[in-house]
């Protein structure tokens, strides 16, 4: 196979683009997909201060590196979950990556916040993943607002977004369908949130990470029974294999033709969001999910219910 651009031997084949690329041209392809997402969806500009959530996985590190290469003002944020035999390795990867590339990095230590995930897990009466995600998003938003960042960026890729859209569609979840997309504007106490990798698949991000020499964290979370939406991703992998390009079309056509219908209805009848009386974080419940976790850890009431409200948009 030859590179579509320069005819050198290809190292990456992309059926969805009917193309193969050599290493140098693949990096150009990747950069242009990110640029197209940023400009096409008006995600941010070079004037913005961008906080990038870094888990240590390939997607978030690839996003950080590419935004840095494109000259954006980026700072990393890592949330250390304090999970034994896992969190230290992920943090070391993030710290090593930022040191190597000269990126500024903030680290939130959940142990210092009194919210170490093993403690929360021991107290919860339901799977930990939902609460863990909620706590991470809480601190992403808090650091972004407290420290004056104008944009919060995450490494969600096309496969993540399509799997989530598919799950939300199977449930006709109006609130989440109204909110799903690569740009969530700043409102109701939430920072502006963006997903610049939404046009790129997990495979495409993995190839970029390899070609850029990114050393990323691969070990699964010991508390996870499997990635979110793994079954949906497999279904979509089969669909995409039979009909290359279908994933991106499904997602982009939803943005263009479907989302506004749900957003309009949500504006009419959706739950109101107000600041949590304990911490000020926006929530549609009486108090926010993180404060409910804190109360449970302090021994107040039973195990917290952390789902069902809208105190985090679009996880």
């Amino acid at each position: 196979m030859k590179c579509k651009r320069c005819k050198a031997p290809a190292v990456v084949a992309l059926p969805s683009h009917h193309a193969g690329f050599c290493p140098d041209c693949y990096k150009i392809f990747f950069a242009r997909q990110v640029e197209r997402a940023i400009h096409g969806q008006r995600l941010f500009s070079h004037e913005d201060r961008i906080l990038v959530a870094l888990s240590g996985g390939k997607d978030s590190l690839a996003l950080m590196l590419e935004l840095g290469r494109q000259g954006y003002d980026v700072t990393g944020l890592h949330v250390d979950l304090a999970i034994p035999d896992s969190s230290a390795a992920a943090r070391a990867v993030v710290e090593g990556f930022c040191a190597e590339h000269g990126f500024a990095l903030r680290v939130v230590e959940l142990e210092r916040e009194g919210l170490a995930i093993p403690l929360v897990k021991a107290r919860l009466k339901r799977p930990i993943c939902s609460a863990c995600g909620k706590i991470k998003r809480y601190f992403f938003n808090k650091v972004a607002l407290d420290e004056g960042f104008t944009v919060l960026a995450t490494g969600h890729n096309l496969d993540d977004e399509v799997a989530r859209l598919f799950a939300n569609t199977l449930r006709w979840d109006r609130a989440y369908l109204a909110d799903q997309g690569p740009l969530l504007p700043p409102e109701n106490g939430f920072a502006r949130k963006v997903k610049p990798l939404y046009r790129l698949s997990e495979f495409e991000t993995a190839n970029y990470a390899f070609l850029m020499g990114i050393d990323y964290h691969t070990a699964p979370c010991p508390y996870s029974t499997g990635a979110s939406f793994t079954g949906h991703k497999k279904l979509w992998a089969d669909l995409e294999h039979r009909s290359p390009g279908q994933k991106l079309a499904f997602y982009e056509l939803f943005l263009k033709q479907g989302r506004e219908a749900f957003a309009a209805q949500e504006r009419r009848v959706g739950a109101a969001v107000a600041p949590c009386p304990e911490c000020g974080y926006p929530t549609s419940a009486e108090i926010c999910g993180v404060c409910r976790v804190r109360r449970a850890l302090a021994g107040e009431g039973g195990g917290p219910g952390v789902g069902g409200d809208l105190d985090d948009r679009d996880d």
Partner: protein
Amino acid sequence: MATVPNAAPNAVGTAAAGRDDRPAPPPVVVRLQPEGETRTFDRVNTALQLLNRLGLLPTMALVIRNGGLLTPDVRIRPGDELEVRRVTSSG
């Protein structure tokens, strides 16, 4: 890490070796990531065929040889040492 021999025997390799005394070609050794498992295959023609034998679609994994990426059409040689790195995050 565990080494698992290829489940499908190479009928051509063993039978032919017995008839004409030619030694069987060295197997292809594949390290699967992130599991860390190693598997061997007696004969694999292309990267695509290898992925098929592993039950993977071409966009589910990177195929790496000597530090470089392989597209699905690239021929695999006897004795090659490969890494197949699944791209789907697992939690």
